[in-house]
Each structure stands twice: as structure tokens, then as C-alpha cells.
């Protein structure tokens, strides 16, 4: 009986992880195909499609664009999120709970709605479609996330540390820069990497707000319109690999706590 439940548990775990990871495994596997169609039988392994991706300037420049948009928009989202978290945690504000709710609200709104809203807004403000516009969109979706992560880690035990720094003669900006930011570094980096992951993968907003220069997910979508081939698998695998690296950084910075 016990053996049976054990086997059942294993089967269940296999089914769950298979359900989650099988599509990715198939994607990666057929990116190594040596023939021209990503369908069985497997004919690889071969790196020819990766070579094709890296020699395609549209894809590589989209990759660079994506990295730029992800890192710059995440830096902006983290900075703004950190400052607002610090403000909410350290100062008594009227309607604090309501304002905190409002700042995290975009987390619950679909990217499509946010993207459409921004499109309409940028149109009427005659801001052209560009990577900058997409970057601003990514700040909008990632700021609430950065705020929530950093605010949750900003405890009362740091108040006295900041007071001590002030007591020893530090002006406010030095308190923030030399004390609060380093003490909060794990949460700040975690927010940064998670925000980069989301920006890196984001399609809808980038699709709506960019035109000629665009990000990698939009470029992949363009590629897909001409049908499946192992090149789309290869570029998809690259996107996935970068996401994995970012998530691992996120987990490491958030989970590895220094002893108090």
C-alpha cells in the first residue's frame, strides 16, 4: 500500500513537471535539428540554426534592444519603487494604505489594457512609437512589482540604523546611499532581476509601442508569421536561457540572507 502511494506520488510529480517543462524541452530539442523542419524525427544535434540566428542582424539587434530596454527600464522601475517604498515605510502619509493600494494596482491590470492605454496617451501627446515608449511601458508594469518586493523587506529594524547614521552627521541623501540601499541590497537586486525577466519576455506592450526598432519577442513573432522553422526554436531557446539566468540571480539574491 505504502509502495503504491509512493509510486503514485512519483507519477504525479512526473506528470506535473512534464506538463510544465515538456514544451520547453521540445523547443530546445528541435532547435538542435539539423534539417529544415522542427518536427520528428530528430536529426541533430547541430548548431546550424543558432549560427543562423547569430548571423541574422535583425534578430541580433532586436536582442541588443531587448537587453537595453530590460536593463534601463528595470533600473528606473527599481529606483522609483525603492524611493516610494522608503517614503511609505518611513513617513506618515495621509491615506497611506489607499496610496499603497493604488501603486500596486497595475499588477492586476492586463498588459494589453496598459499597452492600449499608453498607446492612446502617447498618440495624443504625439510621442512616437519607439523603444523609449516600450521602456516607459515596462516601467509602468514593473514599478508596482519592485515597490511590493522592496516595501515588504523594509522593516522597522532599519529605522534605528538610519537614525544612527543621521545622529553621526550624515545628510539624508548619504543615509539613503550609504546605509539604506546597501542594507536593502538583496531586495533591490531581487526586484531588479525579476523586473528584467518580465521586461525581457514582454510582448504585448512592446508590440503596441514600437515600430522599426523593436524587441526580441516582437521580432520572434514576425519570424513566426512566416511559419515554423528550427531558427525560431533556436532564438526561443536563447530567450529562455537568458530568463533562466535572470531568475537564478533573483532567487540567489532574495534567498541568500546575511545573518543579522
Amino acid at each position: 500500500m505504502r509502495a503504491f502511494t509512493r509510486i503514485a506520488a512519483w507519477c504525479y510529480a512526473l506528470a506535473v513537471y512534464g506538463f510544465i517543462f515538456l514544451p520547453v524541452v521540445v523547443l530546445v530539442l528541435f532547435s538542435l535539428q539539423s534539417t529544415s523542419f522542427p518536427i520528428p524525427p530528430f536529426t541533430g544535434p547541430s548548431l546550424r540554426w543558432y549560427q543562423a540566428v547569430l548571423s541574422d542582424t535583425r534578430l541580433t539587434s532586436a536582442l541588443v534592444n531587448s537587453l537595453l530596454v530590460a536593463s534601463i527600464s528595470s533600473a528606473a522601475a527599481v529606483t522609483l519603487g525603492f524611493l516610494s517604498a522608503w517614503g511609505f515605510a518611513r513617513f506618515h502619509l495621509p491615506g497611506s494604505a489607499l496610496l499603497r493600494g493604488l501603486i500596486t494596482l497595475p499588477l492586476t491590470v492586463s498588459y494589453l489594457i496598459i499597452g492600449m492605454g499608453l498607446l492612446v496617451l502617447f498618440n495624443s501627446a504625439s510621442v512616437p512609437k519607439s523603444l523609449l515608449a516600450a521602456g516607459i511601458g515596462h516601467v509602468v508594469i514593473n514599478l508596482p512589482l519592485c515597490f511590493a518586493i522592496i516595501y515588504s523587506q523594509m522593516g522597522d529594524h532599519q529605522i534605528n540604523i538610519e537614525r544612527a547614521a543621521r545622529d553621526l552627521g550624515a545628510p539624508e541623501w548619504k543615509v539613503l546611499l550609504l546605509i539604506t540601499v546597501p542594507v536593502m541590497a538583496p531586495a533591490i537586486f531581487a526586484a531588479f532581476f525579476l523586473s528584467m525577466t518580465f521586461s525581457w519576455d514582454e510582448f504585448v506592450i512592446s508590440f503596441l509601442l514600437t515600430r522599426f526598432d523593436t524587441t526580441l519577442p516582437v521580432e520572434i513573432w514576425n519570424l513566426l508569421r512566416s511559419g515554423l522553422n528550427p531558427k525560431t526554436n533556436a532564438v526561443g531557446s536563447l530567450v529562455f536561457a537568458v530568463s533562466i539566468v535572470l531568475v537564478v540571480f533573483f532567487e540567489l539574491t532574495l534567498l541568500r540572507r546575511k545573518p543579522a
Partner: protein
Amino acid sequence: MSTPLVDIRDVSHRFGQHSVLKNVSLTIEPGSYTILLGPSGSGKTTLLSILGGFVSPSEGKVFIRGQDCTFVPPARRPTTTVFQDYALFPHMSVGANVGFGLRMRGVDGATRAAKVREALALVGLAAAFDKKPHQLSGGQRQRVALARALVVEPAVLLLDEPLGALDLKLRRQMQDELKAIQKRVGTAFVHVTHDQEEAMALADHCVVMNDGRIEDEGPPERVYARPATRFSATFMGESTILAGTVTEAKNGTIAVATSAGAVSLPGALQQGTTVALAIRPEHLVLGAASGAVALGQATIGDVVFQGSFKRVLATSALDPALQFIAKAPASAKVRAGDTIAVSCDASDIILLAN
């Protein structure tokens, strides 16, 4: 007379509707060790925060070295604080922690390092320069916090229950060291505590606070021997309190009728005044009435052996509401349930006006 180092004038403070300090005035002399002693909620920590600049008083003024510092932020006052939780910077080495204040004052690296080493040597932690705070024990962190606050040479060092987080043995040891360090550097220390033993051991000037007011202040010997109020008689050490009324007053002697009998003692109060008489446990004599003032018979309720003495609680036979607190020699043969005579000397009775 020179101006005092710190002059707190008529300071009151309210948190919303709640009044935590009520018209407090206090002066602090250079080089003194002042203890603010009181139960929680007495306003002692608020007073310290007002001195440090973390709280601006609702009313009143604070002068430090003759300058009005009432609304000067902490960064720009000549005070530093040792926080109860030490508040060390966890991401910096001990050396960087101690050197932080000097760095903010623009002192160059080499001078800074030399001064930091000197300050660490002063607190007996010369070897900890490169360590991180989390590698140190509680007592060592306490010393780092002390060195960090002292190295910038403040006019006044403020200590917020600095020994509260340490165990009893370490607390007594750190207490002796604090006193020695204070004598060596000569900086005025203001130290908040609710531990009366700590207060008596450390203070040059002891300030007893209760309910937002200063009840009594002076050298600890005086505050203990002749407390000014009923509160300080019971908070700074224990006392037996006898309530009574003056029945006769002449030639500098008054007779007071109490529930334990008539007591006559030196004093100049009007007939009919209600008073409280306080007697320290070590001044109550149990058994064969050798004291000049007889306080009737009492039934012993509880005897607690405390090593060098026995703490005895006894209920008066004349007034069941009256409880005597006495200190008997360790060898005394007293047992719960015994009835015994209680007496004392008139000169040991502390007269407290109600």
C-alpha cells in the same frame, strides 16, 4: 557660576492627546554621569530623544553649551546616541562603523583609521577592526556602538537602556566598564534605565522620573537615603510606607499618628497635615524592641533567603493593610507565622509630605 552643559527648560511633550512629558526642567554638568531612572511610560526615553534631536518638544527649550538646540536635527547637534539595539551598520566592518561619524565630518582616511583604532582600544576591542558586526557577541556589539558614538567627541553621550539586552552577569560587568570609560574620557553621559541598581552604581546625578515628571534628583546616595517623594522612596529601593496625620508640632519635633501607633520625629509641619513615613528595609528592627520607635507587633508572612540577608514581609497586627518590608540578617531565626515586635530609630524615618 558657569552655564551648565545642557539646560532643559520647561519641556513638555504630547503624542496626540497623550501627554508624556509635563514641564520638565533639568541641567546637566560637564563631565557628569546622569541617569534617568523610571518605569516604562515615565517619559525618560522621550526626554532622551528630545536631547538627541529625534523628537522636537511640544513646548520648552533645550540649550546645549548655551546654544538653543531645540529644533536642531541630530546630525548637527553635539550629541551622539548609543541605541538600545546598538543599530550597527550590518554591511560595514567594525572599523567602518566606528569611523562613520568621522567620515561624515570629512576626516581623511589615515587620521580616521588612527582615531578608530584608539576608540576601539578604549572599549577593549582593538582586535575587532576588520570584523563584521554579526561576528561579534552582544557585549562586543555594545562596545562597538559605544566607540562609534564616542569617537566623534560629542559634548554629551546619550545611552538608551544600553545594558537592557545583556544578561545579568554581563550587565554588571559592562556597568563597571561604562563608568571607567566615562571617567577616562570625561564626556558627560546621560543614561536611561529602569534598573535602580544600575542607577545607583553608575550615577553622579540620579533623576527619578514618573508619569512625565521629575520626582526627585540628586546624588544617588541622597536620593536613596532621603527620597523627596513617595514614588522615589518605593522605586529607588523598597520602603515600608506609613500613612499618618500630624497631631502635635513643637520645638522642631512632630508627633504623627499612624495605624502602627504614634511616632515622634524631627520635622516642622503644621498640625493636621497628612504625611507619609517611609522606612528602608534595613532600618526596621525585628524582635526584641531595641529601636526607639515601637511600631507594634506583626505577623510574618513571607521569608525569602537572598544569600547575604533574608527579606521578610510582615503584616501589622494593628492594621492588616500595613505591610512591613524588612531585611533580617541571614542568621536571623524568623519563620512565617511568627508574631514579632517591629521597631526603628526616629532618625531613620523618612518624612514625605503628601
